[in-house]
């Protein structure tokens, strides 16, 4: 087992709607790779900010003639930040975990991959974790990514 990457990033509202690539080189083949992702906060705790942003959204997207059905900003609270992980090996797209949970573990090997990804050998070469920063509404969030390589004799948890 070898820790290949351990990175912490700060993401801010201006990073919304961008991709943040994190590349690393595997200098040898592993039997599998584990990607551990964690970001916080998930929910927008500042309710004044949420109210302001939701009202702005309603005014932008709901034409006046349909606003009668709108019963207040709390219907849309809490707002959440959303960052998803997509993966590439060399220039091949291996998939994406488009899910809301702020803590996710993903495994990739030649015979198995976590939902959202296709199985792929944990081969030597250039890997790229691309963070898809859909929305940062909080002032800032902290995003942590840890990548671990496993050898043949070691078995990470198969349920991942």
């Amino acid at each position, binding site marked *: 087992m070898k820790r290949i990457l351990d990175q912490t990033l700060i993401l801010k509202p201006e990073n919304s709607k961008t991709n943040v690539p994190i590349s690393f080189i595997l200098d040898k083949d592993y039997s599998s790779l584990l990607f551990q992702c964690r970001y916080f906060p998930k929910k927008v705790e500042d309710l004044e900010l949420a109210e302001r942003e939701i009202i702005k959204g309603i005014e932008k997207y709901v034409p006046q003639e*349909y606003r009668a059905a709108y019963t207040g900003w709390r219907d849309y609270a809490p707002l959440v930040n959303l960052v998803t992980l997509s993966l590439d090996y060399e220039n091949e797209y291996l998939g994406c975990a488009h899910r*809301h949970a702020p803590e996710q573990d993903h495994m990739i090997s030649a015979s198995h991959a976590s939902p959202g990804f296709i199985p792929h050998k944990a081969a030597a070469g250039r890997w790229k974790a691309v963070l898809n920063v859909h929305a940062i509404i909080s002032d800032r969030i902290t995003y942590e990514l840890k990548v671990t390589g496993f050898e043949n004799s070691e078995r990470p948890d198969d349920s991942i």
Partner: protein
Amino acid sequence: MIQYKAFEMHTHTLHSDGKFTPEELCRTAEQYQFDGIALTDHNTLSAHAYLSSHPDASRIPVVEGIEWTTFFGHMLVLGAESYVDWRYAKPADIDFYLEKIRNVNGVIGLAHPFEIGSPMCTGCHWDFQVRDWNNINYIEVWSKSAPTTHFDNALSFRMWTQILNQGYRIAATAGRDWHWETETRAHAAATYIGVENGEITTRSVCDAIRAGRTYVTAGPAIDFKISAGQRTFAIGDTMPSGICSCRIEIDETKRKAIWGDFGIDVSGIRIVSNGNVIYSSPEEAKMESSFNLELKPGWVRAELYGNALGETGKRIGFTSPIYVE
């Protein structure tokens, strides 16, 4: 021969943010009496990889699709022969990506174009500036369950009509955007798609959508044909302008167990051409009506009106156009 089959065209599994396993999705779709589904997880095809290595997982035919879940709009891509990267599309350069997808024979549909966007659902509202609508095959005009009740679907319908009026050929679909099953059965619309010999494959469904052979309904099945001279034209066809005879047949028996409890009653038929109503049925719609019309160049579609989910005067079904030259 073309046969129309009932589809759910927008679904998710736990390969993205759905709660269904692929097996559960397929089984539940069967319970809704769909003939086929499009599986369109967010930004991944891994559920399709799973299904192809587990042939027993689904009895219902599954069309291979993906939902391009970008920061500036969601787009359904069906049947692409290779993957085109969704991540780097920007509002002004979407046509570049649309052409790339078309080059690998993908069929492209706008998903829920007027869903509320940021901050509630960043990327859910369509903000891409499409320069050439010939690059788009269809628009998901009805989104979510109980589609007659949502304001965004009224806006999508209007957008579709405006694009048809500009001379583009675009089919209509419905999609529940199905992520999990609700405790009590929801009202789900169907997209009927006219496939060759009733055979459902990713290929046959893509061909049918490209040819414009679709209609959308909250309940009853629709058969809409127009005869001119010795020839009869169906949804998606191109016919000559002038005097013609229209025929609409409504079948309230198909999938009635699924939609019968939602207060859906047809009370009228309208024929809409180039955005204008050119025919309204006189009284209670008969299950079969025939009438003569004069058609100008452009497009013509049939629409059903009536009650749905406790509201009156709702549009409860509509066909993609027959095009008129």
